[in-house]
């Protein structure tokens, strides 16, 4: 009988399951995590049930360290506050975020650039007459700018990994300082409230991290079955692949069991 904690083989898991597992591994036990809707929820919930049982999750609609019996469909969902430590509202949780309570942010994005600037607002055309108008920022830039570390989970496509995003919704390692608009480092922009920034981007093909000096994205691991060349072909800027450590660790059978049978048996995010 195969060991539950041994890695599953390609074909035995879905991409989204790999992403959830890769996300879960970014969480240290005891951390306070601020997570968005969707994959971040899978990742954090999985971590709580494996390596980080004492991690607490804040959702931006106002729940703190809920222990959902059923997977929430969004952060406003009644399921988020089941057995929570506190359930209140936005002013409370965003106040805590600004106060410096949050260790790790888990967020998504439509576009990203080599400095980790993320766009969820407008793509193409002009700001006032865009080719595509997206949802707007939500809490993405707030959570990313005030947590100690941020992990983005995204779809990998060349058009989404750009030299420069069309609109900086959420700040990376090099940003513009307003109202002047001069390019500065994230540390310079945030001054006293600089606490860190994006540490990883987990995509459908790979895991990326950022150089501590230059703030530029580099390839850390490729997902099983994906080549470094594949990744390069799906990135719109010159990507440093010299530090690639090899393959992203696949899910274990135990993790797959948890995801499929315990965390998302309804197939809300995993699909059917």
């Amino acid at each position, binding site marked *: 009988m195969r060991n539950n904690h041994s890695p599953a083989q390609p074909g035995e898991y879905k991409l989204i399951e790999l992403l959830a597992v890769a996300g879960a591994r970014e969480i240290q036990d005891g951390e306070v995590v601020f997570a968005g809707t969707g994959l971040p929820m899978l990742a954090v919930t999985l971590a709580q049930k494996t390596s980080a049982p004492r991690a607490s999750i804040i959702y931006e609609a106002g729940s703190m360290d809920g222990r959902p019996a059923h997977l929430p469909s969004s952060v406003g969902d*009644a399921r988020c506050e089941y057995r929570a430590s506190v359930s209140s509202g936005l*002013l409370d949780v*965003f106040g805590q975020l600004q106060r410096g309570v949050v260790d790790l942010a888990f967020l998504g994005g439509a576009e990203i650039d080599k400095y980790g600037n993320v766009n969820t*607002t407008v793509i193409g055309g002009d700001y*006032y007459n865009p080719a595509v108008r997206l949802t707007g920022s939500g809490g993405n830039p*707030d959570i990313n700018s*005030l947590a100690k570390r941020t992990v983005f989970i995204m779809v990998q496509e060349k058009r989404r990994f750009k030299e420069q995003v069309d609109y900086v919704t959420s700040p990376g390692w090099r*940003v513009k300082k307003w109202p002047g608009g001069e390019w500065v480092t994230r540390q310079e922009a*945030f001054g006293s409230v600089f606490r860190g920034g994006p540490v990883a981007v987990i995509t459908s093909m790979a895991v990326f991290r950022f150089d501590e000096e230059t703030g530029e994205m580099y390839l850390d691991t490729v997902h099983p079955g994906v080549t470094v060349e594949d990744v390069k072909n799906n990135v719109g800027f010159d990507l440093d692949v010299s530090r690639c450590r090899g393959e992203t660790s696949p899910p274990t059978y135990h993790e797959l069991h948890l995801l499929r049978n315990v965390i998302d048996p309804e197939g809300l995010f995993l699909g059917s």
Partner: protein
Amino acid sequence: MAKNKRKSIKEAVQLINDGDMITFSGFTIWRRPMAIVYEMVRQRKKNLHLIEVNSGTHGEILIGAGCVKVLETCWIGHELYGKVGANAARKLKSGELIVEDYSHVHMIMRFAAGAMGVPYLPTRASLGTDILNPEYDALGKHGLRDGSNPRIPRRKFEFLTDPFFGEQGDIIHVPAARPNVCIAHVQQVGEEGTVRVYGQRYSDAEAIKAADKVIVVAEEIVPEEVIRQDPTANLIPHYLVDAIVEQPWGAHPTGCFGYYEVDGKFIRDFYSKTKTQEGFDAWAEEWILKVNSFDEYLYKIGFRRLDLLRANSSYKYSTRVKRGA
């Protein structure tokens, strides 16, 4: 003791004027005052200025129906059931709608400022983003920051530094949100107007307190002496509330903690129709204009569907509705 605040949905909507600045209770697709929103479309409200911490299905309906001129918010979409606000996107591109982008923290602080009676609050959220880019000041670009409307601030942001602790880095001042009207859907309201919200309170307290006029729709109007047995569980004192309306299921298709689930199937269908104006118009004809009242709308949805959405009394959400793909 208090004067009678009870109104019908029709009467409550008559308290809203064309051109008003409006905000709402709830969060994305949770606890939105849909019964009032449908009636606003029926009464053909015009030139509304929506100011919301975040928007959702209710905003998309008002925008699709041409009731809205300005939307100030951090987000519009339908969560899992529709990834963008398609009506807002279309009308932004056609020039019919002005969208002003702020972040989530900016918006909650704007409402907190309005609720506390100060003209702004400071924050350090979202530095380094294009939200702060002075070229992306939509109200300014459209000439609306000239002071002629006292509810529209003359600047989108101000940038300052800290003189107290010698901290480096910018502080942003965000202007107060000062809506004419807040329309709230809650679980319970007392006969005198005391508001009780169960579950997450989102930004309801700030939205209600920031507004000059407050309309509260509740699943249930309850005796004031009962709701006052636990005043720590109440959110808003009666004297801040102008009108109360009882409308069970009044937030459908959005969800209501302890009462019913989000109707994801209904919202997904709505979203799919909003990809064109014709699609939206047909949807609005069917679900709003051809039904005369919210009760008729509920009858059209049907008992079977509504009962599946009904919350389990322990979990506070439905355990019977199918949510997955």
